[in-house]
């Protein structure tokens, strides 16, 4: 328009407005790409309009598996995020997976658990350590969303001390015969493919004596035992798996015989980063609700947002979100590099492996505890309204606790971090 000053255009970028740090030459590229922004926006809009209203919980029965929601999310491509495009996934790496996990975590922790058990620990290791046949035959349907995955490690006598698992695998010609029991297997009763850790050579320890197998749901000798009745994440099913002379063809061994423990630990490391993303999503959702509520709720004629005690809560949560957002996505990028090396069969430097373990442990602790803190603050803010089931806060309260426990309790995570410190010194 005439008479209106033309915006200042940077000669280098051809764009109006001040240059970014990147353009100035001292940026750290801490920004989502346009592709990632579109992914995040689309996922959020999709979940808000198609999935959120399906989230219901059965408080009294054994929990209802949200089949309709999961199916919609599978068709949307949410269950194949880190898997390369050529094996049916979205090919958007751990960062893409964390972006999606964050949005799912904002809607429902049960859904985030189903997604996490499938993607991070069920499917990703099969892709990472599997051969071409595994990737085509097993990973493809999992990534395309026509099959569901799970991961089974914990046993009644081996939890945080996973190296003490007892489930046996004995070679019998072209097959392996599995015997034993696994517990607390998320998606266990729903999964088509389950990644199972079993002792293939009891004379060797965890390193060398454990092998990873894919058990398919219709294998003879495999049975789903009892389903846990839980306090939180009630819509995610947690199953006991029973193997009684369960025959697994040798083609279903993932990685080398005897190297199953590496498969398991790698899976758990990456899984923790996405778990933290889910917790971060929950924090953001809670902050939104708390702001909204404190603006609307009036006491003595004024919104409660006018109170400093309320303002501090909001500020504190915003700080936690800011911190976690940065460490979660920084770590996700690290996991991407780590996974790339493994998937391409390159040697992985020990230092990188340690860094991944350490950082994934740190983000898991940080984000899960932020979510736990946030839900307590939200309940305090909402008062009586929060206790009622209508606002979903009491469900959130029951849900958030598990994030501090599963995939290695936060205590175990702290041990991982401090052992690394004591062994390797100050890594900062």
């Amino acid at each position, binding site marked *: 328009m005439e008479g209106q000053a033309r915006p200042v*255009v940077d*000669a280098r*970028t*051809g*764009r109006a407005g001040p240059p970014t740090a990147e353009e100035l030459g001292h940026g750290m590229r801490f920004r989502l790409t346009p592709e990632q922004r579109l992914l995040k926006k689309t996922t959020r809009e999709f979940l808000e309009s198609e999935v959120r209203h399906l989230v219901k919980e059965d408080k009294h029965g054994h929990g209802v598996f949200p089949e309709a929601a999961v199916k919609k999310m599978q068709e949307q491509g949410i269950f194949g995020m880190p898997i390369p495009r050529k094996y049916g996934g979205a090919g958007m790496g751990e960062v893409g997976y964390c972006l999606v996990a964050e949005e799912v975590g904002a809607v429902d922790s049960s859904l985030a658990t189903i997604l996490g058990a499938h993607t991070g620990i069920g499917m990703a290791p099969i892709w990472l350590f599997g051969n071409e046949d595994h990737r085509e035959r097993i990973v493809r349907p999992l990534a395309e969303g026509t099959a569901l995955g799970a991961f089974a490690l914990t046993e009644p006598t081996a939890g945080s001390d996973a190296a003490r698992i007892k489930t046996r695998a004995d070679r019998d010609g072209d097959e392996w015969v599995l015997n034993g029991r696994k517990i607390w297997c998320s998606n266990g009763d729903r999964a088509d493919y389950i990644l199972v850790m079993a002792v293939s050579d009891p004379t060797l320890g965890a390193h060398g004596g454990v092998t990873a197998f894919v058990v398919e749901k219709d294998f003879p000798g495999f049975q789903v035992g009892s389903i846990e009745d839980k306090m939180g994440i009630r819509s995610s099913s947690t199953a006991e798996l029973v193997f009684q002379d369960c025959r697994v063809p040798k083609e279903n061994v993932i990685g080398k015989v005897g190297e199953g423990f590496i498969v398991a630990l790698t899976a758990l490391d990456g899984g923790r980063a996405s778990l933290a993303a889910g917790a971060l999503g929950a924090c953001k959702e809670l902050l939104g609700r708390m702001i909204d*509520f404190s603006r*609307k*709720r009036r006491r003595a004629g004024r919104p409660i947002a006018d109170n400093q005690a309320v303002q501090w809560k909001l500020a504190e949560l915003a700080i936690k979100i800011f911190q976690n957002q940065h460490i979660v996505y920084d770590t996700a990028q690290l996991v991407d590099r780590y996974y790339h090396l493994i998937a391409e069969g390159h040697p992985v430097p020990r230092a990188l492996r340690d860094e991944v373990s350490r950082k994934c442990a740190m983000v898991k602790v940080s984000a899960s505890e932020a979510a736990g803190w946030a839900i307590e603050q939200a309940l305090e803010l909402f008062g009586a*309204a929060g206790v009622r089931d*209508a*606002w979903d806060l009491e469900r959130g309260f029951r849900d958030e606790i598990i994030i501090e426990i599963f995939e290695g309790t936060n205590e175990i995570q702290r041990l991982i971090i401090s052992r690394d410190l004591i062994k390797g010194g100050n890594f900062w």
Partner: protein
Amino acid sequence: MADDELGGWGAFVQEQDAMDAERSQAASEREARPDEWRNVWVYAEVRDDHVRSSVYELIGKARELADALGVRVETFLAGTGDVDRHAQALIKAGADAVYIAKSPLHARQDPDAVHASLVHHVRRRRPELLLFGQNTFNDALAARLAVTLDTGCVTRVSGIRLETSERLFVFDQVGYGGRLERSSWIPKAKPQVATVLRRSFTRPLPDPTRTGQVIDVMTELGHEDLRLQVVGEAPEPAGLPLSQAPAVVLCGKGIGSKEGYAAAGRLTEIIHDCQMATTRSSVDLGFGPADRLVGIHGIRIAPRLLITLGVSGDLDTLEGIDTDRVSTWVAVDRDPESPILAMADIAVVSDWEPFIDALVETLKAEKRALTF
């Protein structure tokens, strides 16, 4: 390439230069001699055998503009059969002349037939301003007409001002769901074509003493003018879900009974695109159906018109109302201390039943009056 390094700005400068040189020439070629274009036209759209109510609003505004310019208000009506009977109502509302283009091809609002008729008569009679009511159909029609007549077109107009010295109409426009407004004008071309949002102007009271001309105009339409061939009727698209309903009657616990809920439903028969909804406590008491539940437990609504009956306004319910989108909120509650009354635009302290009875009667009478 230099252009790429400059982000296309090199090309921009060249284009600008070329444009400035050519623009004045082309503009003078196109520029109409303004004194040839006179009078304000309103397109009298017929829908279901009635002239649309928005047409009368346009006539009211056109009258005001025409009086300021000392010109005539003329309406153009395309139809078939006894469409002449609408002419007097248009005149009484303020038109000086009604052109009636009768043709069997105008039995429907055929986009090609209407376009052909309008192009023919606008070229011949040269109005300076041509107003349409805004809707998807008329927007496309107006734009097509403007291009054919080599003029500009402005849509979603909410106000028209006159720059008398330049004989120029300045249109206020609304965009982004009502969040943005701007002003546009068409400085160098005639006629100025605009589509106007409903309810932008007041509908004038009919003046029974007014007289005017009714002019039957020739239509030389043939079937060859029709590009689209009608092969059958199509059903109306399915009704909107409650979450998108433009008008909602929300009944709370105060509605008292299942029968009360049904009685309040009479409003939905009169108010356009109106749906019933209910609150948690009313569902729990069995007054309203659970699939119409609004609030934190149920559906979130964002109507333009909201009528709440016996709703007290607790946070659970308010969570389900996008109050920013409500432009008229009528709250009826018997308790003058009820918090919802302070939030509404119109608060009625009364039992809902006698109020609704009287409101239904008033609205019925108004609706009859609207159809003339």
